[in-house]
């Protein structure tokens, strides 16, 4: 019973954070058609900015106020400069996708390298709300609860934005069919850049939450990108609820395998990824 | 026994029947027209015959042999070739190589002769011999459609499925295209063509099949079709092109 609770609730708490990490990637790939391998690096940068600010005595949740708009602008500009250029030059969407991914690889190297130059490659960690609360026979970390709640909150706000505002609807239209949306008077380059920006902002916020719960290092990004890839494949591309469900499932699987053999946790996620690609490549919420 | 025969061919796309319970047949040497409004399931039927899609339920027989579970390349090698509604050429490869692919893989052992000479013959046949070494993407749409025809013919087919090869052509090109189809027929190849250009259909086809909402609504000679009530109903409001 204790083990079940540990896995289930522990998994949900981790899954909440994972779903925020993957939501950004889902937007970037599902709508803007850029498979942003550097997603995890944006997250890592967010984490380090948070670390730096908290070392100056700021509450580690406060930096999100700065990080979100800052990362949004960076993402937006990046899309308008690099990816729009590639998009215009590509003869078909397939070529754009592969070239976009390769450019994202370039971005991954650059961002990680800059971070290594600034912070080196040693791990950083600090204690924030490092206490536990009990549910039945099990203990859980307060900081993870805070982070998961924060992640769910951000996800909800964004979901409302997508479903009820004009820009949100334009994004959803572009996700369905960017060519038609373009014909309907949606400025498609702007909307895609918007999505990329939102993706980057979410990565930044996710970085803050990761920083609260886990040790961070400049080389941690790719690992989270891989997990996020599995989650968005599981949940369905471009689907916010899909990212949530996928995140929670992966969170629970990850925690369960961690109880059994931590060495195989990432491998387990990957096996799920393989099975999924072969059985239902569209994902749970995919159309 | 018919050359090609379809029995109760059906396929669903997400609950929607794109082709539903269609029976059809082809006899050697004929030219059959396949018409119907947009979205009637004509191209889907081609996809089913050529192996891009698998019917469920239903079966397709080629010379009495079931082919509806076979992969596309095998169907091609057996002798059913096709062109595409939106041209699918190998754009960065020269025209010769486009045709050579069909000859080397589709005809697969059917040709003992010199392949280069055969490619040359085919290009002459469709009238592309003077642009043989140009990258295919640099050609006009009309020419690109002819590359597809040449590539399909290169596989030495018994049945050739032509998907709107006359759409978007100017009057001169149209006449040339009609000539080409007749020449193909003379070669002994059975032709099925999807076309919206009624003049062409009526002028060339021995027999016409009409599809609407995935169902076969009429079949017969051009004369029979033009007087068929159902067909007129379906085409009412559409131009008489």
């Amino acid at each position, binding site marked *: 019973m204790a083990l079940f609770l540990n896995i289930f609730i522990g998994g949900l708490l981790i899954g909440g954070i994972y779903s925020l990490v993957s939501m950004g990637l889902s937007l970037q790939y599902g709508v803007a058609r850029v498979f942003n391998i550097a997603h995890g690096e944006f997250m890592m940068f967010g984490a380090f900015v948070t670390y730096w600010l908290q070392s100056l005595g700021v509450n580690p949740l406060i930096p999100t106020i700065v990080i979100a708009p800052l990362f949004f602008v960076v993402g937006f500009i990046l899309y308008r400069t690099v990816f729009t250029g590639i998009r215009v030059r590509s003869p078909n969407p397939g070529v754009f996708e592969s070239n976009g991914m390769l450019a994202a690889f370039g*971005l991954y190297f650059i961002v990680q390298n800059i971070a290594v130059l600034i912070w080196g490659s040693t791990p950083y960690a600090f204690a924030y709300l490092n206490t536990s609360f009990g549910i039945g026979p099990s203990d859980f970390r307060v900081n993870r609860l805070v982070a998961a709640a924060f992640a769910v909150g951000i996800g909800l706000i964004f979901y409302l934005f997508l479903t009820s505002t004009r820009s949100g609807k334009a994004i959803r239209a572009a996700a369905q069919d960017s060519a038609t949306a373009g014909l309907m008077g949606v400025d498609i380059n702007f909307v895609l850049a918007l999505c990329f920006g939102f993706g980057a902002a979410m990565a930044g916020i996710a970085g803050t939450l990761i920083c609260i719960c886990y040790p961070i290092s400049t080389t941690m990004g790719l690992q989270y990108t891989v997990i996020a890839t599995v989650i968005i494949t599981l949940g369905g591309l471009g689907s916010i609820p899909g990212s949530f469900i996928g995140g929670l499932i992966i969170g629970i699987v990850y925690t369960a395998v961690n109880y059994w053999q931590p060495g195989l946790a990432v491998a387990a996620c990957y096996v799920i990824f393989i099975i999924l690609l072969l059985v239902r490549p569209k994902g749970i919420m995919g159309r | 026994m018919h050359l090609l025969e379809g029995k109760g061919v059906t396929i669903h796309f997400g609950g929607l029947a794109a082709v539903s319970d269609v029976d059809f047949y082809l006899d050697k040497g004929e030219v059959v027209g396949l018409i119907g409004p947009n979205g009637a399931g004509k191209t889907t039927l081609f996809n089913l015959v050529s192996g891009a899609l698998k019917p469920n339920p239903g079966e397709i027989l080629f010379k009495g042999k079931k082919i509806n579970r076979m992969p596309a390349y095998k169907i091609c090698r057996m002798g059913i070739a096709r062109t595409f509604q939106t041209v699918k050429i190998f754009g960065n490869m020269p025209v010769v190589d486009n045709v050579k692919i069909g000859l080397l893989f589709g005809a697969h052992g059917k040709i003992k002769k010199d392949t280069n000479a055969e490619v040359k013959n085919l290009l002459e046949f469709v009238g592309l011999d003077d642009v043989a070494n140009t990258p295919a993407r640099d050609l006009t749409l009309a020419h690109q459609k002819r590359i597809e025809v040449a590539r399909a013919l290169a596989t030495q087919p018994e049945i050739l499925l032509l998907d709107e090869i006359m759409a978007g052509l100017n009057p001169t090109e149209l006449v040339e295209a009609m000539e080409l189809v007749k020449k193909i027929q003379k070669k002994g190849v059975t032709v099925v063509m999807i076309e919206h250009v009624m003049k062409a259909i009526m002028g060339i086809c021995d027999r016409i099949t009409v599809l609407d909402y995935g169902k076969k609504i009429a079949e017969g000679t051009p004369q029979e079709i033009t007087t068929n009530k159902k067909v007129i109903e379906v085409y009412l409001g559409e131009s008489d092109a």
Partner: protein
Amino acid sequence: MNLSNINWKQLSKTFAAPLVILLALALMPFYGWEYGVSLFSHFLIYIILTVSWVMFSGATGYISLATAAFYGIGIYSAALLHPATGFSLPLIAVIIVSAAASFLVAFIVGAITLRLKGIYFAMFTFGLVLLLFQVINYVETSILGQRGRFVALESNETIYYYLLGIFVVTMIVTFFIKNTKYGLALRSIGENEDAAAHSGVNVTMVKVLIFAVSAALMSTVGVVMATKTIYVDASTAFNPMMSFSPALMAIFGGMANLYGPAVGAVIFSYVQEILQTGNLNNYYMLIFGSILIATILYMPQGLMGLIQNLWNRLKGAKRALTRG
């Protein structure tokens, strides 16, 4: 390729230069430049990996990030079959076994995954590297209680000649594929898979086969390199950079002709060497990334494509001049 009407003059022109290069490379160990042998081995590794990568990914447009996985299979083959102590097969036998193993793995993986399009294929292949790393690491440390394995040390010259041999084989295979109907089929798949299938090309078979051939070549490099680094554990065998580097080198060099990938590989491995010994390694990834983005944006045909364009323009200008 039509054998009946080979133009011998042209053939000699095509092959004269490669033979001269090959001869120069073969005499390398006799120049008395000891470190040169190591340096050129380093170049050869990346040339072979890059050319084999282009063999499949360049033609079909399927971006494979599994290079490190096959390279790692080679390294582990050497660790298991050519260890420092105990029963050891001769190196050439290990190379063959490893190539066969890699071919088999790639064949199976390819058969399952090559219907995945675009990004999914890339992610899948990259995941394969991580999966192999995690599983082998787990089995080695937690089940077998291994603390890494040791491979028998070979001399630098032996390693160099093995690599040179593999290089020649790789080039011959590439040349062969390019000039037979399979090369044509592979290109047609890259251009339009549907049309290829409906023209009678057994798309899956061609893709899987060439993918497996390129994987086999990649793994042989791993075998040879293992006899140089000697100590093998999962993290040294499955290094993700081994997946990224060949892709970048190929894109930078240009994939349109046979030499582009090789030139890209030499330039990049040389840059890496300079940065390493100048302790500017910190900037390697930065340079790597920037060049990657710049190449995709401004030089889509790669370095060789750029040179060719410039040359064509120069020639065009000259002609225009003489005409005027």
